[in-house]
């Protein structure tokens, strides 16, 4: 059981949490024992069950502590399976969370939700403005993970989170794939899961960068031109991926751009392959502009290198409203596992619905 703080009223409790550095700077829902217990109960797991350790503080992410963060973030209890899955992914050794929290790069964990849990544990928005304000599940699930990284993982700016600037996605960064609008199989199916599974994929990445492409169905080179423009945003010389020649990145295709590619018979795999080819650059460019990192290719000034180790390191998903935009999210590329994405199946079998609770809009 976590230690309890005491306050005369919720207003004082909020000030206390701010002063203790337990918030993200915005007001939080006060995590009273009753509210936290309801979220623990909804998870279907014991409160002292350990989901993993979160670095760099190496704090124990128990279900109770995660539920506390979920309450503070404004989550409905329905969201708990997604919050739990995101925390499990962050605690996975392959995610290198300690390094991710400590780096000077701005990276923030982006939560991508696939499968039926998009609705049963949400709804998690995947359409217009999915990464913007106005979607409670997106806003609070991503925020719950951030509050876990602060209060369990110990990530505090300038002390243990050394991001030079950070980015707004460090408040919350969560969306679902628009599977119904996508001409491709869902992302989690391409990653090896069953279509009936629900999966959270976590990728530490930069803020999204908008990619404009005005398509033209009469242009036989339409798909190729779109892929070229995407590749420019994906791994230009200002990105870590192009300088470190490592890491992963996400291409979040708007449904219209996805249809342009599908019309030319591109699959997710062939999109990844072509983007990988288009992010191959001359070593001479790297040697000239990459500073200390330029030594990597100094013995072969006439050769070329790929910004990504393999096509699979370029994740492709579909989300957003219908228009001329897609988004790209390059990433850091550092640490032992080179900033790879980690997917975790959502365990909704444990989930316990509390009759009437969600309908009342509580938690």
């Amino acid at each position, binding site marked *: 059981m976590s230690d309890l703080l005491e306050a005369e009223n919720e207003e004082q409790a909020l000030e206390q949490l701010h002063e203790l550095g337990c918030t993200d700077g915005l007001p939080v829902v006060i995590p009273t024992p009753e509210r936290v217990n309801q979220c623990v109960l909804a998870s279907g797991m014991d409160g002292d069950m350990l989901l993993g350790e979160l*670095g*760099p*503080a*190496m704090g124990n992410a128990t279900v109770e502590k995660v539920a506390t963060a979920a309450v503070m973030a404004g989550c409905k209890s329905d969201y708990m399976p997604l919050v739990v899955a995101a925390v499990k992914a962050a605690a996975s050794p392959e995610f290198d969370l*300690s*390094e991710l929290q*400590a780096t000077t790069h701005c990276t923030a964990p982006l939560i991508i939700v696939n499968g039926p849990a998009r609705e049963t544990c949400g709804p998690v928005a995947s359409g217009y403005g999915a990464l913007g304000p106005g979607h409670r599940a997106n806003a609070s699930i991503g925020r719950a993970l951030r509050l876990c990284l602060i209060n369990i993982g*110990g990530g505090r700016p*300038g*002390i*243990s989170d*050394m991001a030079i600037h950070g980015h707004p996605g460090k408040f919350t960064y969560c969306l679902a794939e628009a599977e119904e609008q996508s001409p491709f199989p869902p992302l989690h199916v391409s990653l090896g899961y069953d279509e009936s599974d629900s999966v959270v994929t976590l990728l530490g990445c930069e803020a999204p960068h908008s990619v404009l492409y005005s398509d033209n169905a009469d242009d036989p080179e339409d798909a190729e031109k779109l892929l070229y423009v995407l590749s420019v945003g994906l791994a230009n010389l200002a990105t870590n991926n192009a300088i470190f020649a490592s890491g992963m990145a996400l291409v979040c295709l708007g449904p219209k751009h996805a249809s342009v590619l599908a019309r030319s018979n591109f699959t997710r795999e062939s999109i990844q392959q072509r983007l990988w080819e288009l992010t191959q650059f001359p070593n001479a460019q790297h040697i000239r502009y990459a*500073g*200390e990192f330029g030594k990597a290719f100094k013995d072969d000034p006439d050769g070329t290198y790929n910004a990504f180790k393999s096509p699979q390191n370029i994740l492709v998903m579909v989300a957003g409203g219908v228009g001329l935009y897609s988004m790209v999210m390059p990433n850091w590329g550092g640490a032992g596992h080179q900033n790879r994405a980690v997917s975790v199946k959502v365990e909704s079998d444990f989930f316990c619905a509390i009759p009437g609770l969600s309908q009342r809009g509580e938690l």
Partner: protein
Amino acid sequence: MRDGYNIAKRNMPVVALITEDFWDQGQFVANSLGMPELPRVMLPHPVAGLGEAKIKLIADDVIEGILDSFVNE
């Protein structure tokens, strides 16, 4: 700091070089890893990109402290 911790765990002598801006973070990591007294020497911040001449000046400034740490801590 984590590199210093990993070397210390192998029972090898180590002094971590931590820049001024990362000093508090280094202590945070050292505490988290259970080695709060891990020897360390402060460098100015930032070190990257200063060029060889300035790096040598910094090295001249800190070398005694590094050697002292190896001998005395």
